[in-house]
């Protein structure tokens, strides 16, 4: 029974992907992509991975969709002929991609029969960390270095986006169009949803210690609320050179690094937590991370600083 549902879900996902890739009309395709993200999160639930489902719904469906819709709105007047790939090019690409898919399907069907897994090892040390959620333990304890480096990658991406500003605008606010302060329903939506959304975001990261949830899903939620505030005009987009913005952006990395170095100084190695005190330390890191991720993701969508005169 569950297999039939999974097959239907798989067919729906493939159909949506085909629409996104070969469909006509960029706006319809972007909306189809948001639907694709949401149906993918259903697939993740079918694969017994609720943490990933939360993150996919928040990031893949919501925030990426916002980014693409804004880009589409600004690229409306683009000229320049799009030279489509010729028939032979398409046939060659079709053969190549069909071959890639076929090889991957063969790999999937011939995976080793007792599947190698790290679940028992992940669970064996779970009690020492004080956490109840194995995925959070992997993210924050076993592979904490990966998480720290990934936060740095996010910050580097934001610096790359900022560096695309015109030189004279460096340090200004990123520009935001769309009738600031005049759209009544949008302002109502912002006032009603932002407090609740921030609370849900905090809850998502807080409950991730023992139940499904993670700092990334919570941070994505908070960034979405920030974006809603920017769109409605109830929050001003911060200046790129603002001190509070920059402190909020590096706060997560700073806390993570300081705790890691304290572990190094205490003699047990970089990013080791004290054995009886692990959970409060992890929660402290996660608080800083959620704040930083929220601010970074929102600023990534908003884009580089621009001239204020283009309203």
């Amino acid at each position, binding site marked *: 029974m569950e*297999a039939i549902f*999974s097959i239907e879900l798989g067919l729906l996902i*493939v159909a949506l*992907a085909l629409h*996104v*890739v070969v469909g006509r009309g*960029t706006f319809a*395709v972007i909306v189809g*992509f948001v639907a*694709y993200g949401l149906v*993918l999160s259903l*697939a*993740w639930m*079918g*694969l017994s*991975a609720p*943490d*990933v489902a939360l*993150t*996919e719904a928040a990031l*893949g469906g919501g925030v*990426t969709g916002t*980014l*693409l819709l804004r*880009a589409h709105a*600004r*690229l409306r*007047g*683009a*000229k*320049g002929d*799009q*030279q489509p*790939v010729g028939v032979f090019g*398409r046939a060659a*690409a079709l053969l*190549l*991609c069909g071959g890639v*898919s076929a090889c*991957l*399907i063969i790999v*999937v069907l011939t*995976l080793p029969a007792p599947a*190698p*897994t*790290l*679940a028992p090892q*992940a*669970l064996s040390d779970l009690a020492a960390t004080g956490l109840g959620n194995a*995925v959070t333990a992997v993210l924050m304890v076993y*592979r904490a270095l990966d998480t720290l480096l*990934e936060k740095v990658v996010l910050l580097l*991406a*934001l610096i*790359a*986006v900022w560096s*695309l500003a015109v030189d004279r605008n460096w340090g200004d606010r990123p520009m935001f169009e769309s009738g600031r302060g005049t759209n009544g329903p949008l302002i109502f939506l912002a006032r009603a949803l932002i407090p609740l959304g921030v609370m849900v975001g905090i809850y998502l990261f807080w409950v991730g210690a023992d139940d499904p949830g993670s700092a*990334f899903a919570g941070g994505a939620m908070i960034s979405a609320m920030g974006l809603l505030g920017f769109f409605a005009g109830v929050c001003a987009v911060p200046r790129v050179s603002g001190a509070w913005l920059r402190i909020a952006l590096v706060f997560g990395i700073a806390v993570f690094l300081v705790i890691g170095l304290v572990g190094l100084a205490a003699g047990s190695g970089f990013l080791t937590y004290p054995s009886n005190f692990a959970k409060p330390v992890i929660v402290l890191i996660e608080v800083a991370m959620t704040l930083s991720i929220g601010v970074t*993701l929102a600023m*990534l969508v908003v884009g580089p600083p621009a001239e204020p005169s283009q309203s």
Partner: protein
Amino acid sequence: MSIATIFGICASLLIGIGLYGLIVQPHPLRKMLSFNVLGGGTFLLFGAIARRGAAAGLGGDPVPQALVITGMVVAFAATAVGIAILLRFFEETGEASLRDPMKANSKELDH
């Protein structure tokens, strides 16, 4: 046919579809969309492998799941940088194609 195999096959198809779109679509925004479809398929393949590693009371192997969470955030960051480059290119040249504007202008001058 187990759930992991079904989603693994679905993920392989997604990777092929996304790769086709990335190669064939001329408009850069559509290329970014196809790139994200490709990314979603890759992560789903990870998820199928994680599901096969269900043991010791857990529904799936937690290590690939944590890798996928990290990967999703990095993929979003890459998309954001790509979109920012595309928008800046559009602001400078007024067109949104990957054709080299200098070469195109010189071609028109030759005629």
